[in-house]
């Protein structure tokens, strides 16, 4: 289509285009890989891994809200070893950056996973300190600067590939956490994870989710994501993978203008498996119409009043 240069760099990792798929919304790529070649994507943040296999939370795990969804999947995954043995080789058949997403119960667990994944040759590790669906650890790491810094430090010590830390939006001041994580040596930041929310079935009087609350994602959260990416980009000097509610090229352009180097598409895939491809093409079109040679020219280009 357009002649815009699509490739971008995220903490030294080259992405052939700035569209990545968000962790937990795209599995390990097998399912949506039935619809198109995964090489169309810039990268994949794989489903969140833990050291050991987890079955996740009891159902129901999904509730719809106005232009959003709540989920309480709770990190169901086969464990980091199974990922390395069974999923990574499959992903490597395609030409896209593979970003492993990890959650630990202790800083040590993060360290072990970083070692294993670095050795296995993923392109990047996304350290999830912000998943609101796990009782142990999880959210607490993402809301306390010292803990966030500690996890980051351990991850950096054990990883030989770039470490990206994923921030929670459920905080008073996201720049405080961003700064702590940056000071601890993170190579990149990704944001936002889900906002905590709840939906109640008024007939049964039960929360729809068995965990009572869950994480809100989808278009509803886009304005919060844009604000936080802008704040974080203004506060720290690290590349950002922006996400939260992206469903159109314009949404991705907003996040890039706010300061993101690349953009992840998550919930939008559920309505439309082709969403990441469409977002990529529309984004290229926007850059093209605006006369940019490269999409990366958008990054940080917002002109605040």
């Amino acid at each position: 289509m357009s002649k815009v240069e699509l490739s971008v760099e995220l903490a030294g990792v080259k992405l052939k285009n700035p569209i990545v798929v968000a962790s937990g919304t795209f599995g390990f790529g097998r399912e949506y890989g039935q619809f198109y070649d995964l090489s169309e994507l810039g990268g994949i943040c794989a489903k969140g891994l833990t050291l050991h296999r987890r079955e996740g939370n009891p159902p129901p795990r999904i509730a719809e809200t106005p232009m959003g969804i709540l989920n309480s999947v709770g990190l169901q995954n086969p464990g980091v070893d199974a990922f390395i043995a069974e999923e990574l080789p499959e992903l490597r058949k395609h030409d896209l950056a593979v970003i492993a997403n990890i959650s630990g119960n202790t800083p040590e667990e993060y360290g072990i996973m970083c070692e294993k994944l670095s050795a296995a040759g993923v392109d990047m590790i996304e350290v999830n300190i912000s998943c609101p669906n796990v009782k142990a650890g999880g959210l607490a790491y993402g809301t306390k600067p010292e803990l966030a810094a500690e996890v980051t430090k351990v991850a950096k010590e054990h990883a030989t590939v770039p470490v990206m830390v994923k921030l929670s939006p459920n905080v008073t001041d996201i720049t405080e956490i961003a700064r702590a994580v940056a000071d601890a040596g993170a190579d990149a930041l990704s944001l936002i994870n889900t906002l905590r929310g709840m939906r109640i079935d008024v007939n049964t009087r039960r929360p729809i989710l068995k965990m009572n609350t869950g994480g809100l994602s989808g278009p509803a959260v886009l304005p919060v994501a844009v604000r936080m990416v802008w704040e974080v980009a203004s506060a720290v000097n690290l590349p950002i993978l922006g996400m939260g509610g992206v469903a159109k090229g314009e949404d991705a352009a907003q996040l890039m203008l706010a300061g993101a180097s690349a953009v992840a598409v998550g919930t939008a895939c559920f309505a439309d498996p082709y969403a990441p491809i469409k977002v990529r093409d529309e984004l290229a079109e926007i850059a093209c119409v605006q006369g940019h040679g490269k999409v990366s020219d958008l990054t940080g280009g917002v002109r605040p009043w």
Partner: protein
Amino acid sequence: MPIEQRCTIVEMTPLNDSTWWMTLEVGKMVEEQGLRAGQFLHVACGEGNLLRRPISVACVLADEPENTAALIFEVKGEGTRWLAGRKVGEQVNVLGPLGNGFSVEERGRYLLVGGGIGVPPLLGYAEAYHKNAVAVLGFRSADRVILAERFRECCKEVYLCTDDGSLGRHGFVDAQVRDILEKEKDFTAILACGPKPMLKSVAKVAAEYGVPCQVSMEERMACGVGACLGCAIQMADGTMKHVCKDGPVFDAREVEWNV
């Protein structure tokens, strides 16, 4: 392999005051992907609703009308209300074929057990085993009954039950199933679809009489294709399976019923 497709609506008929029969031209899904009853389509339900809605395929016609599938749905909330407002000639965007459908043998003898809006996915099986299957269909009351005539046309026997006794047998389907199995257990399997408490009781009766039982389960879905892990159900062995990818049909013995 699932595909995304805009399908033209070729029939839209109310079956009762809140249930619709919608026939869709599904084209390649039948020819190339082998769409069949008991699988489901993930249907986009208008701009106001972010998620697609899973609706089972009641039956598939390879011809007359060519390559069509019937979806039968009840209006529950906003998505199905939107769907009920569609007209013949309009298009709906669907993902499919999704899920497995019931696993059947060519010469099998099946006992079909459906409850309420769980009845439609059995229709294709009733038709496939012409005059060979036995059906037990349960509804809340006489005015909720759907598809009874069609099942009568193609089943060996049809037993109707209503919760309030306003038509057929008074009570739940599992009592009827028990009576049938009491007389003869010689079924290849029970194929059941309906609300979870019903499936649980039917599974229990089936186990008592040693008859294999397949159940079609529901869970809230996001992706519909196995990517989000949203539609988990608990298995008896402590693991999770996913309705959209591993189901919606499961062996009743594998399911953890006590949650």
